């Protein structure tokens, strides 16, 4: 099997699964329970919070555990909008956000908020001057993703942070789900107020995510109840998944330390090989893009059929982002980048992790050539 869909989800580390198993069997207590079992679960939770904070270079009380990236994005956006609605009703985001950012923004629009969706250039990157111009007196929130999930474009988060530093009333949210442990981001240096991460994108298990919530920023809770997670996110904590996530985060950062250059080399090699195939047009920009995402179009061939063709060889790639691939809509990011509809409809995404090998490339490339050949015979 060659797994090339790591931006959809990653294969959990065996070590993370071990931690999950141990916690779920031995320390299943509710962290809020007074007895010993509850206390142990609470210790595990707090140790997770400390380690996560340490790895991200922030304070433990700035880490809120959620059920995943979607919840963290929803919480950040709706929570900030509702908390600060007295200040204004204007939100700025981009045209290429993940649905878990874009949809909450639509919901807020129905509630009377105004949302500006910033366009991107042909490389998938927003214009910082345009952002500066979009800021108004009533702007309360700016939400920009770090690494785009479809093409891998990297937004200038640090520069945005610098710009927003001059507007202390604006809350700055960053969707860092695709970037964490792959593209470095200093949360403090970039003046980020809220930042989303998700366990299963870095070899943790589903059901756990992280929202960094800078001290001094308040959010109106989405989930009201027993006051867990520093009174911000009620609901009995998923301790096993959180511990597993913490371990996966440590291991993934270690992989970054050791193999960052390797991942880049891997992507370079992929791009070189893909560029040799006549029917493939690369969509991922050469500069300012993440080391693990490669997006290309199949010259009008149906990408869905292509995915199934490769799957027969046990090679797993994706059409667009996993969340929208079932809707048969052309890639939103590519459309925003000005790619024509036909090309956007035949887009394919390869997403790597530190686990991928160089030896996979010739095998996969061969299969890709084969699949394209076969598709061309059928469609023409």
């Amino acid at each position, binding site marked *: 099997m060659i797994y090339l869909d790591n931006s959809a989800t990653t294969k959990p580390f065996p070590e993370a699964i*071990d*931690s999950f198993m*141990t*916690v779920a069997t031995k320390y299943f207590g509710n962290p809020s329970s*007074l007895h*010993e079992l509850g*206390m*142990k679960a*609470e*210790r*595990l939770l707090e*140790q*997770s919070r400390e*380690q996560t904070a340490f790895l991200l270079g922030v304070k433990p*009380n700035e880490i809120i555990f959620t059920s995943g990236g979607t919840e963290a994005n929803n919480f950040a956006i709706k929570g900030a909008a509702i908390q600060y609605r007295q200040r204004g009703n204007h939100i700025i985001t981009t045209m290429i956000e993940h649905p878990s950012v874009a949809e909450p923004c639509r919901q807020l629009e129905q509630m009377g908020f105004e949302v500006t969706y910033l366009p991107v250039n042909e490389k998938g990157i927003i214009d910082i001057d345009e952002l500066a111009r979009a800021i108004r007196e009533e702007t309360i929130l700016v939400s920009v993703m770090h690494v785009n999930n479809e093409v891998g474009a990297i937004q200038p988060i640090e520069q945005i942070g610098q710009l927003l530093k001059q507007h202390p009333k604006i809350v700055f949210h960053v969707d860092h789900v695709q970037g964490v442990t792959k593209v470095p981001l200093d949360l403090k240096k970039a003046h980020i107020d809220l930042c989303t991460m998700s366990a299963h994108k870095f070899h943790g298990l589903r059901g756990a995510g992280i929202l960094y919530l800078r001290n001094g920023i308040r959010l109106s809770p989405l989930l009201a109840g027993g006051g867990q997670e520093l009174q911000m996110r009620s609901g009995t904590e998923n301790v096993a998944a959180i*511990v597993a996530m*913490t*371990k996966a985060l*440590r291991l993934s950062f270690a992989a970054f330390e050791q193999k960052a250059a390797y991942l880049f080399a891997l992507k370079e090699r992929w791009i070189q090989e893909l560029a040799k195939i006549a029917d493939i047009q690369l969509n991922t920009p050469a500069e300012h893009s993440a080391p693990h995402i490669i997006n290309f179009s199949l010259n009008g061939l149906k990408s869905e059929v292509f995915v199934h063709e490769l799957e027969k060889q046990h090679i797993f790639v994706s059409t667009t982002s996993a969340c929208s691939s079932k809707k048969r809509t052309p890639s939103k990011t590519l459309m925003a980048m000005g790619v024509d509809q036909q090309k956007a409809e035949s887009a394919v995404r390869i997403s790597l992790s530190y686990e991928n090998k160089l030896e996979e490339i010739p095998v996969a490339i061969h299969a890709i050539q084969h699949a394209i050949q076969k598709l061309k015979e059928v469609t023409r």
Partner: protein
Amino acid sequence: MKYDRILIRYGEMSTKGKNRNRFVVRLKQNIAKKLASFSNIKIEYMRDRMYILLNGEPHEKVMEQLKTVFGIQSFSLAIKCENDIQQIREAALTAVQQNEYEGKTFKVSAKRVDKQFPVGSSELNYEIGSHILRNTQNLTVNVHQPDIHVRVEVRKDGTYVTCHDVPGAGGLPVGTSGKAMLMLSGGIDSPVAGYLAMKRGLEIEAVHFFSPPFTSERAKQKVIDLVKKLTKFGGKIKLHIVPFTDIQQTIHRQVPDGYSLISSRRMMLKITDLLRKKHNGLAIVTGESLGQVASQTLESMFVINDMTTTPVLRPLVSMDKTEIIELARKIDTHDISILPYEDCCTIFTPSSPKTRPKREKVAYYESFIDLEPLIETAVANTETWVIDEAFTSADEFENLF
């Protein structure tokens, strides 16, 4: 040329006459312990300052650690070069260029400690200043309030150039003033008292009174976490956990309500004093502040203090609660302290304790019970933990993270 060392200036210990060497050696040990994870560094010390040779270790991280070491007045990143005017000029220029200097102002202060050096200090100032001006853009001189203060010291062993002083933690090196027992309840005050005691050079051992099942494991954990925060300033700290349930229950049964609290406090002090003797301490530190609660009126202090002649140090005695809270936040113990678990201070608190207890009365009530054997048992059964920054009581969790 690049920044290759950190220059450390001593605090007030430079005034300590013949004892100074002891202070300096202790400071060096403390720094070495704090920086143990940086295996390449080397520490050189002299009578009036210390140098950490970085040997490639990241200076940002080393400097972050230094901020919590007591006995340091200030420290700076430094470049060393030979006593040669050409080299000195280059070193000073490099030192400036490693800052973000555009649009800023600077000033040079040269000091010629080595009088054999042929160039005088004002001439040095001029030489270095003009060399910097010639080789930079958008940098101007301001001798009154410079953004970058280039300090050049020509000494016998070489010339040192620094640009920016970072204030240190001040105080005296931990351990130079002797050892004291810190009575640590788990509240906001006692960790702050411990911090201040260490700042004055005391080595501390913490004493906590544990009354299961009236106080929970969580309360104990909280104290461990607090001690862990304090180890950031004092290295390893011993924590003595005294089983106090029997004594507390006996007092509660025999001593009238208004006096039971005072009596418990007296026994705590007595036990702490016994532990102090056992572990060769010379003082007891408490987080008492005058007039905060019933047991901290002057009358109560008088009655409690009656148990011992050992010096009881109360670093917080003159502080307001808001000042204490501010310090607790600074040393990062506040958020742990406010966790709402029952501890030895909150349980068994009578609804209206006496604020003006009489010594004779307490002694009279206590005369009906024989607490001596209970105290002996408590001391004998005291659990001692050695806690450092990496301490975790739950080793069973080790592989989970």
